[in-house]
Protein backbone atom coordinates (compact mmCIF):
# COMPACT_ATOMS: atom_id res chain seq x y z
CA UNK A 1 0.00 0.00 0.00
CA UNK A 2 2.76 2.40 0.92
CA UNK A 3 4.67 1.31 -2.16
CA UNK A 4 6.88 4.11 -3.40
CA UNK A 5 8.94 3.82 -6.55
CA UNK A 6 11.85 6.02 -7.61
CA UNK A 7 11.43 7.69 -10.98
CA UNK A 8 13.06 10.53 -12.93
CA UNK A 9 11.23 13.77 -13.68
CA UNK A 10 11.10 14.31 -17.45
CA UNK A 11 8.46 17.01 -17.65
CA UNK A 12 7.21 19.77 -15.32
CA UNK A 13 4.18 22.02 -15.68
CA UNK A 14 1.32 23.65 -13.81
CA UNK A 15 -2.25 22.47 -14.14
CA UNK A 16 -4.64 25.14 -12.84
CA UNK A 17 -1.96 26.20 -10.35
CA UNK A 18 -1.10 22.65 -9.28
CA UNK A 19 2.51 21.57 -9.95
CA UNK A 20 2.32 18.44 -12.10
CA UNK A 21 4.82 16.52 -14.18
CA UNK A 22 5.74 13.32 -15.97
CA UNK A 23 8.03 10.79 -14.33
CA UNK A 24 9.94 8.01 -16.07
CA UNK A 25 10.16 4.68 -14.27
CA UNK A 26 12.75 2.80 -16.31
CA UNK A 27 10.83 3.34 -19.55
CA UNK A 28 7.26 3.56 -18.23
CA UNK A 29 6.01 7.16 -18.00
CA UNK A 30 3.30 8.44 -15.71
CA UNK A 31 1.73 11.74 -14.89
CA UNK A 32 2.33 12.69 -11.26
CA UNK A 33 1.60 15.53 -8.86
CA UNK A 34 4.74 17.42 -7.81
CA UNK A 35 3.05 19.77 -5.30
CA UNK A 36 4.82 18.32 -2.27
CA UNK A 37 8.32 18.57 -3.72
CA UNK A 38 7.86 21.64 -5.93
CA UNK A 39 10.39 23.77 -4.03
CA UNK A 40 13.27 21.32 -4.28
CA UNK A 41 13.09 19.51 -7.60
CA UNK A 42 14.22 20.19 -11.16
CA UNK A 43 14.03 18.28 -14.43
CA UNK A 44 16.14 15.12 -14.27
CA UNK A 45 15.84 14.69 -10.50
CA UNK A 46 14.78 11.37 -9.04
CA UNK A 47 11.71 11.39 -6.82
CA UNK A 48 9.86 8.73 -4.80
CA UNK A 49 6.33 8.33 -6.22
CA UNK A 50 3.36 6.99 -4.26
CA UNK A 51 -0.20 6.84 -5.72
CA UNK A 52 0.67 9.50 -8.27
CA UNK A 53 2.36 11.92 -5.86
CA UNK A 54 6.05 12.68 -5.44
CA UNK A 55 6.79 12.44 -1.72
CA UNK A 56 10.51 13.15 -1.68
CA UNK A 57 13.49 13.94 -3.81
CA UNK A 58 15.94 11.05 -3.76
CA UNK A 59 19.09 12.27 -2.09
CA UNK A 60 21.60 10.97 -4.66
CA UNK A 61 24.58 11.66 -2.44
CA UNK A 62 23.07 9.67 0.43
CA UNK A 63 21.98 6.93 -1.96
CA UNK A 64 25.55 6.55 -3.21
CA UNK A 65 26.99 6.79 0.30
CA UNK A 66 24.68 3.99 1.57
CA UNK A 67 25.69 1.77 -1.33
CA UNK A 68 29.36 2.56 -0.81
CA UNK A 69 29.15 1.59 2.87
CA UNK A 70 27.32 -1.61 1.96
CA UNK A 71 29.88 -2.43 -0.73
CA UNK A 72 32.79 -1.88 1.63
CA UNK A 73 31.04 -4.10 4.14
CA UNK A 74 30.76 -6.78 1.44
CA UNK A 75 34.46 -6.53 0.70
CA UNK A 76 35.32 -6.70 4.41
CA UNK A 77 33.20 -9.81 4.82
CA UNK A 78 35.06 -11.42 1.94
CA UNK A 79 38.42 -10.68 3.53
CA UNK A 80 37.25 -11.94 6.90
Amino acid at each position, binding site marked *: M*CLGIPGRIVEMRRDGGLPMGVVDFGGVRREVCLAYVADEVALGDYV*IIHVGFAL*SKVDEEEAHRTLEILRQMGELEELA
Partner: protein
Amino acid sequence: MKYLAEYRDPKLARALVERIRRTATRRWTLMEVCGGQTHTIVKQGINDVLSDQVEMIHGPGCPVCVTPLEQIDRALHLASRPDVIFTSFGDMLRVPGSACDLLQVKARGGDVRAVYSPLDALELARRSPDKEVVFFAVGFETTAPANAMAVWRARELGVRNFSVLVSHVTVPPAMVAILEAPDNRVQGFLAAGHVCTVMGWTEYEPLAERYRVPIVVTGFEPMDILEGIWMAVRQLEDGRHEVENQYVRSVRREGNAAAQDLMGRVFQVVDRGWRGIGVIPASGLGLRPEFAEYDAELRFALGSIRADEPAECRAGDVLRGRIKPFECAAFGTSCTPESPLGAPMVSSEGACAAYHNFARAGRAAAPGA
Protein backbone atom coordinates in the same frame (compact mmCIF):
# COMPACT_ATOMS: atom_id res chain seq x y z
CA MET B 1 15.88 0.55 -12.57
CA LYS B 2 18.06 3.09 -10.84
CA TYR B 3 17.81 3.14 -7.03
CA LEU B 4 16.12 -0.27 -7.04
CA ALA B 5 18.46 -2.84 -8.61
CA GLU B 6 21.44 -1.80 -6.48
CA TYR B 7 19.51 -2.54 -3.33
CA ARG B 8 18.75 -6.09 -4.44
CA ASP B 9 22.37 -7.24 -4.89
CA PRO B 10 22.60 -10.85 -3.56
CA LYS B 11 26.32 -10.55 -2.80
CA LEU B 12 25.83 -7.52 -0.59
CA ALA B 13 22.84 -9.20 1.02
CA ARG B 14 24.95 -12.20 2.01
CA ALA B 15 27.55 -9.90 3.54
CA LEU B 16 24.87 -8.17 5.60
CA VAL B 17 23.38 -11.48 6.75
CA GLU B 18 26.87 -12.51 7.87
CA ARG B 19 27.28 -9.20 9.70
CA ILE B 20 23.97 -9.67 11.55
CA ARG B 21 24.89 -13.24 12.48
CA ARG B 22 28.16 -12.05 14.00
CA THR B 23 26.57 -9.11 15.81
CA ALA B 24 23.74 -11.02 17.51
CA THR B 25 24.73 -12.88 20.67
CA ARG B 26 21.15 -14.02 21.25
CA ARG B 27 17.79 -14.10 19.46
CA TRP B 28 15.99 -10.73 19.38
CA THR B 29 12.35 -10.01 18.55
CA LEU B 30 11.70 -7.22 16.06
CA MET B 31 8.48 -5.94 14.49
CA GLU B 32 8.04 -4.30 11.12
CA VAL B 33 4.92 -2.16 10.78
CA CYS B 34 4.69 -2.05 7.02
CA GLY B 35 3.04 -4.50 4.67
CA GLY B 36 5.58 -3.82 1.94
CA GLN B 37 8.38 -4.81 4.29
CA THR B 38 6.42 -7.90 5.43
CA HIS B 39 6.10 -8.95 1.79
CA THR B 40 9.85 -8.57 1.15
CA ILE B 41 10.83 -10.27 4.42
CA VAL B 42 8.71 -13.37 3.80
CA LYS B 43 9.24 -13.52 0.03
CA GLN B 44 13.02 -13.23 0.28
CA GLY B 45 13.09 -15.60 3.26
CA ILE B 46 14.87 -13.02 5.42
CA ASN B 47 13.06 -14.36 8.51
CA ASP B 48 14.26 -17.80 7.45
CA VAL B 49 17.98 -17.12 6.98
CA LEU B 50 18.12 -15.11 10.21
CA SER B 51 15.87 -17.35 12.28
CA ASP B 52 18.56 -17.87 14.97
CA GLN B 53 19.23 -14.14 15.30
CA VAL B 54 15.86 -12.42 15.00
CA GLU B 55 12.22 -13.30 15.12
CA MET B 56 10.34 -10.92 12.84
CA ILE B 57 6.81 -10.22 14.04
CA HIS B 58 4.69 -8.76 11.29
CA GLY B 59 2.76 -5.83 12.76
CA PRO B 60 -0.44 -4.12 11.61
CA GLY B 61 1.30 -2.44 8.70
CA CYS B 62 -1.12 -3.12 5.88
CA PRO B 63 -3.86 -0.46 5.67
CA VAL B 64 -5.99 -2.75 3.54
CA CYS B 65 -5.81 -5.34 6.32
CA VAL B 66 -6.72 -3.03 9.21
CA THR B 67 -9.65 -1.25 7.53
CA PRO B 68 -12.61 -2.17 9.76
CA LEU B 69 -15.29 -4.49 8.45
CA GLU B 70 -18.04 -1.90 8.83
CA GLN B 71 -16.08 0.54 6.66
CA ILE B 72 -15.92 -2.18 3.96
CA ASP B 73 -19.66 -2.73 4.36
CA ARG B 74 -20.25 1.00 3.93
CA ALA B 75 -18.15 0.92 0.75
CA LEU B 76 -20.22 -2.02 -0.52
CA HIS B 77 -23.43 -0.15 0.24
CA LEU B 78 -22.24 2.92 -1.68
CA ALA B 79 -20.92 0.91 -4.61
CA SER B 80 -24.33 -0.76 -4.99
CA ARG B 81 -26.14 2.56 -5.43
CA PRO B 82 -27.09 3.28 -9.06
CA ASP B 83 -26.21 6.98 -8.71
CA VAL B 84 -22.65 6.28 -7.45
CA ILE B 85 -19.35 5.59 -9.19
CA PHE B 86 -17.24 4.03 -6.46
CA THR B 87 -13.48 4.46 -6.86
CA SER B 88 -10.71 2.80 -4.90
CA PHE B 89 -7.11 1.69 -4.99
CA GLY B 90 -7.10 -1.74 -6.62
CA ASP B 91 -6.03 -3.62 -3.51
CA MET B 92 -9.29 -2.85 -1.67
CA LEU B 93 -11.51 -4.48 -4.29
CA ARG B 94 -11.23 -8.07 -3.03
CA VAL B 95 -11.32 -7.35 0.71
CA PRO B 96 -14.27 -9.31 2.09
CA GLY B 97 -17.11 -7.41 3.71
CA SER B 98 -19.86 -9.11 5.70
CA ALA B 99 -21.63 -10.44 2.60
CA CYS B 100 -19.38 -9.90 -0.44
CA ASP B 101 -16.56 -7.74 -1.83
CA LEU B 102 -16.39 -4.77 -4.18
CA LEU B 103 -15.57 -6.91 -7.23
CA GLN B 104 -18.74 -8.93 -6.64
CA VAL B 105 -20.76 -5.71 -6.43
CA LYS B 106 -19.20 -4.71 -9.74
CA ALA B 107 -20.13 -8.08 -11.27
CA ARG B 108 -23.73 -7.42 -10.25
CA GLY B 109 -23.71 -4.11 -12.10
CA GLY B 110 -22.26 -1.68 -9.57
CA ASP B 111 -19.97 0.96 -11.06
CA VAL B 112 -16.72 0.18 -9.24
CA ARG B 113 -13.45 1.44 -10.64
CA ALA B 114 -9.84 1.06 -9.55
CA VAL B 115 -7.81 4.27 -9.76
CA TYR B 116 -4.05 4.82 -9.58
CA SER B 117 -4.26 8.23 -7.90
CA PRO B 118 -7.03 9.97 -5.91
CA LEU B 119 -6.71 12.82 -8.42
CA ASP B 120 -7.94 10.37 -11.07
CA ALA B 121 -11.12 9.91 -9.01
CA LEU B 122 -11.56 13.69 -8.83
CA GLU B 123 -11.07 13.98 -12.59
CA LEU B 124 -13.69 11.27 -13.09
CA ALA B 125 -16.12 13.34 -10.99
CA ARG B 126 -15.47 16.38 -13.19
CA ARG B 127 -16.23 14.32 -16.29
CA SER B 128 -19.34 12.68 -14.77
CA PRO B 129 -21.45 15.58 -13.46
CA ASP B 130 -24.63 13.47 -13.33
CA LYS B 131 -23.05 10.89 -11.00
CA GLU B 132 -21.79 10.91 -7.42
CA VAL B 133 -18.13 9.87 -7.41
CA VAL B 134 -16.92 8.44 -4.09
CA PHE B 135 -13.28 7.64 -3.39
CA PHE B 136 -12.29 5.11 -0.71
CA ALA B 137 -9.63 7.10 1.18
CA VAL B 138 -7.64 4.46 3.04
CA GLY B 139 -3.99 4.30 3.96
CA PHE B 140 -1.31 5.37 6.39
CA GLU B 141 0.42 8.74 6.58
CA THR B 142 2.11 7.90 3.25
CA THR B 143 -1.20 8.08 1.39
CA ALA B 144 -2.91 10.80 3.42
CA PRO B 145 -1.23 13.74 1.59
CA ALA B 146 -2.47 12.43 -1.77
CA ASN B 147 -6.00 11.95 -0.47
CA ALA B 148 -5.92 15.34 1.26
CA MET B 149 -4.97 16.95 -2.04
CA ALA B 150 -7.95 15.38 -3.83
CA VAL B 151 -10.35 16.89 -1.28
CA TRP B 152 -8.53 20.23 -1.28
CA ARG B 153 -8.65 20.41 -5.10
CA ALA B 154 -12.32 19.40 -5.15
CA ARG B 155 -13.10 22.46 -3.06
CA GLU B 156 -10.73 24.69 -5.06
CA LEU B 157 -12.32 23.62 -8.35
CA GLY B 158 -15.87 23.64 -6.99
CA VAL B 159 -16.49 19.95 -7.73
CA ARG B 160 -19.62 19.09 -5.77
CA ASN B 161 -20.30 15.50 -6.85
CA PHE B 162 -17.10 14.17 -5.24
CA SER B 163 -16.76 12.74 -1.75
CA VAL B 164 -14.44 10.44 0.19
CA LEU B 165 -15.10 7.49 2.48
CA VAL B 166 -12.24 7.99 4.93
CA SER B 167 -10.54 5.20 6.83
CA HIS B 168 -7.08 6.64 7.45
CA VAL B 169 -4.86 5.20 10.16
CA THR B 170 -1.59 6.37 11.67
CA VAL B 171 1.35 4.23 12.74
CA PRO B 172 2.67 5.54 16.11
CA PRO B 173 -0.59 4.91 18.08
CA ALA B 174 -0.58 1.30 16.84
CA MET B 175 3.00 0.89 18.05
CA VAL B 176 1.96 2.24 21.46
CA ALA B 177 -0.98 -0.20 21.56
CA ILE B 178 1.43 -3.06 20.85
CA LEU B 179 4.00 -1.91 23.40
CA GLU B 180 1.34 -1.39 26.08
CA ALA B 181 -0.10 -4.90 25.64
CA PRO B 182 0.73 -7.05 28.71
CA ASP B 183 1.98 -9.90 26.51
CA ASN B 184 4.14 -7.70 24.28
CA ARG B 185 7.35 -9.38 23.09
CA VAL B 186 8.59 -6.72 20.67
CA GLN B 187 12.07 -5.46 21.53
CA GLY B 188 12.68 -3.21 18.56
CA PHE B 189 10.93 -1.80 15.50
CA LEU B 190 11.63 -1.25 11.86
CA ALA B 191 9.64 1.92 11.12
CA ALA B 192 8.09 2.28 7.67
CA GLY B 193 10.29 4.32 5.34
CA HIS B 194 7.55 5.99 3.32
CA VAL B 195 5.39 6.85 6.33
CA CYS B 196 8.50 8.59 7.69
CA THR B 197 9.23 10.20 4.32
CA VAL B 198 6.05 12.18 4.97
CA MET B 199 6.12 12.49 8.77
CA GLY B 200 9.83 12.42 9.59
CA TRP B 201 10.78 10.63 12.80
CA THR B 202 10.43 13.15 15.62
CA GLU B 203 7.21 11.49 16.86
CA TYR B 204 9.11 8.21 17.28
CA GLU B 205 11.75 9.72 19.56
CA PRO B 206 9.53 9.84 22.69
CA LEU B 207 8.43 6.24 21.98
CA ALA B 208 12.02 4.95 21.80
CA GLU B 209 12.80 6.80 25.01
CA ARG B 210 9.67 5.87 26.98
CA TYR B 211 9.53 2.18 26.03
CA ARG B 212 13.31 1.76 25.68
CA VAL B 213 13.02 0.23 22.21
CA PRO B 214 15.27 0.87 19.23
CA ILE B 215 13.36 2.18 16.22
CA VAL B 216 15.07 2.10 12.83
CA VAL B 217 13.45 3.95 9.92
CA THR B 218 13.88 1.42 7.13
CA GLY B 219 13.38 1.19 3.36
CA PHE B 220 11.78 -1.58 1.34
CA GLU B 221 14.41 -3.35 -0.73
CA PRO B 222 16.06 -6.50 0.63
CA MET B 223 19.30 -4.58 1.36
CA ASP B 224 17.39 -1.85 3.18
CA ILE B 225 15.62 -4.35 5.40
CA LEU B 226 18.79 -6.28 6.16
CA GLU B 227 20.60 -3.09 7.05
CA GLY B 228 17.64 -1.96 9.19
CA ILE B 229 17.68 -5.28 11.06
CA TRP B 230 21.43 -5.00 11.53
CA MET B 231 21.11 -1.46 12.95
CA ALA B 232 18.35 -2.55 15.35
CA VAL B 233 20.29 -5.63 16.48
CA ARG B 234 23.40 -3.53 17.04
CA GLN B 235 21.42 -1.14 19.24
CA LEU B 236 19.95 -4.03 21.23
CA GLU B 237 23.39 -5.59 21.70
CA ASP B 238 24.77 -2.21 22.83
CA GLY B 239 21.82 -1.59 25.17
CA ARG B 240 20.83 1.55 23.22
CA HIS B 241 17.29 2.63 22.34
CA GLU B 242 17.42 5.37 19.76
CA VAL B 243 15.70 6.34 16.55
CA GLU B 244 18.06 5.72 13.65
CA ASN B 245 17.50 6.26 9.95
CA GLN B 246 18.51 3.57 7.49
CA TYR B 247 16.47 5.03 4.60
CA VAL B 248 18.57 8.18 4.27
CA ARG B 249 18.02 8.55 0.54
CA SER B 250 14.36 9.45 1.13
CA VAL B 251 13.74 10.33 4.79
CA ARG B 252 14.71 13.55 6.63
CA ARG B 253 14.15 14.00 10.35
CA GLU B 254 11.41 16.64 9.85
CA GLY B 255 9.71 14.77 6.98
CA ASN B 256 7.89 16.56 4.15
CA ALA B 257 6.60 19.86 5.58
CA ALA B 258 4.38 20.72 2.59
CA ALA B 259 2.64 17.33 2.77
CA GLN B 260 2.15 17.58 6.54
CA ASP B 261 0.75 21.08 6.11
CA LEU B 262 -2.01 20.06 3.69
CA MET B 263 -2.80 16.91 5.68
CA GLY B 264 -3.30 19.16 8.72
CA ARG B 265 -5.61 21.51 6.82
CA VAL B 266 -7.87 18.74 5.52
CA PHE B 267 -7.68 16.05 8.23
CA GLN B 268 -7.88 15.94 12.00
CA VAL B 269 -6.88 13.20 14.44
CA VAL B 270 -9.77 10.88 15.36
CA ASP B 271 -10.25 7.59 17.20
CA ARG B 272 -10.25 4.80 14.66
CA GLY B 273 -11.25 1.14 14.67
CA TRP B 274 -8.61 -1.33 13.40
CA ARG B 275 -9.88 -4.56 11.93
CA GLY B 276 -9.16 -7.42 14.31
CA ILE B 277 -7.82 -5.08 16.99
CA GLY B 278 -10.62 -2.69 17.87
CA VAL B 279 -10.64 1.05 18.46
CA ILE B 280 -7.26 2.66 19.15
CA PRO B 281 -7.59 6.19 20.55
CA ALA B 282 -6.34 9.01 18.31
CA SER B 283 -5.07 6.49 15.75
CA GLY B 284 -6.75 7.77 12.63
CA LEU B 285 -7.46 10.76 10.46
CA GLY B 286 -10.92 12.06 9.58
CA LEU B 287 -12.04 15.09 7.59
CA ARG B 288 -12.10 18.42 9.44
CA PRO B 289 -15.60 19.88 9.96
CA GLU B 290 -14.97 22.51 7.25
CA PHE B 291 -14.72 19.68 4.70
CA ALA B 292 -17.88 17.90 5.95
CA GLU B 293 -19.58 18.27 2.57
CA TYR B 294 -16.93 15.95 1.08
CA ASP B 295 -17.50 13.28 3.74
CA ALA B 296 -19.32 10.33 2.14
CA GLU B 297 -20.38 9.05 5.57
CA LEU B 298 -22.38 12.23 6.14
CA ARG B 299 -23.50 12.76 2.55
CA PHE B 300 -25.00 9.28 2.34
CA ALA B 301 -25.89 8.90 6.06
CA LEU B 302 -23.87 5.70 6.52
CA GLY B 303 -23.59 5.89 10.29
CA SER B 304 -26.19 3.17 10.86
CA ILE B 305 -24.16 0.49 9.08
CA ARG B 306 -22.43 -1.62 11.74
CA ALA B 307 -20.77 -5.02 11.47
CA ASP B 308 -19.24 -7.72 13.65
CA GLU B 309 -16.16 -9.56 12.52
CA PRO B 310 -16.33 -13.30 11.79
CA ALA B 311 -15.15 -15.30 14.81
CA GLU B 312 -13.27 -17.84 12.70
CA CYS B 313 -10.81 -15.23 11.38
CA ARG B 314 -7.89 -14.59 13.74
CA ALA B 315 -6.59 -11.58 11.82
CA GLY B 316 -6.38 -9.61 15.07
CA ASP B 317 -4.00 -12.11 16.63
CA VAL B 318 -1.91 -12.13 13.46
CA LEU B 319 -1.81 -8.33 13.25
CA ARG B 320 -0.73 -8.09 16.87
CA GLY B 321 1.96 -10.72 16.38
CA ARG B 322 0.37 -13.20 18.80
CA ILE B 323 0.29 -15.98 16.25
CA LYS B 324 1.96 -16.61 12.92
CA PRO B 325 -0.56 -16.92 10.06
CA PHE B 326 -0.10 -20.71 9.74
CA GLU B 327 -1.07 -21.16 13.40
CA CYS B 328 -4.65 -20.14 12.53
CA ALA B 329 -6.92 -23.17 12.00
CA ALA B 330 -8.50 -21.53 8.94
CA PHE B 331 -5.13 -20.85 7.23
CA GLY B 332 -5.00 -22.61 3.86
CA THR B 333 -8.22 -24.51 4.56
CA SER B 334 -11.33 -22.33 4.88
CA CYS B 335 -9.21 -19.22 4.23
CA THR B 336 -7.13 -18.90 1.05
CA PRO B 337 -6.25 -15.99 -1.27
CA GLU B 338 -9.00 -17.21 -3.63
CA SER B 339 -11.58 -17.36 -0.84
CA PRO B 340 -10.34 -15.20 2.03
CA LEU B 341 -11.97 -14.86 5.44
CA GLY B 342 -9.99 -11.80 6.37
CA ALA B 343 -8.10 -8.99 4.70
CA PRO B 344 -4.55 -10.20 5.56
CA MET B 345 -5.16 -13.14 3.21
CA VAL B 346 -6.22 -10.80 0.38
CA SER B 347 -3.65 -8.07 0.06
CA SER B 348 -0.26 -9.02 -1.34
CA GLU B 349 1.07 -7.11 1.67
CA GLY B 350 -0.99 -9.06 4.18
CA ALA B 351 0.98 -11.42 6.42
CA CYS B 352 -1.39 -14.36 5.74
CA ALA B 353 -1.14 -13.99 1.96
CA ALA B 354 2.65 -13.62 2.16
CA TYR B 355 2.96 -16.86 4.15
CA HIS B 356 0.45 -18.64 1.94
CA ASN B 357 2.24 -17.64 -1.27
CA PHE B 358 5.76 -18.25 0.03
CA ALA B 359 4.96 -21.18 2.30
CA ARG B 360 8.42 -22.72 2.35
CA ALA B 361 9.98 -19.67 3.96
CA GLY B 362 7.05 -19.27 6.31
CA ARG B 363 7.00 -22.78 7.73
CA ALA B 364 10.76 -22.95 8.08
CA ALA B 365 10.64 -19.92 10.36
CA ALA B 366 8.05 -21.47 12.67
CA PRO B 367 9.18 -21.33 16.28
CA GLY B 368 10.95 -24.57 17.13
CA ALA B 369 10.94 -25.75 13.52
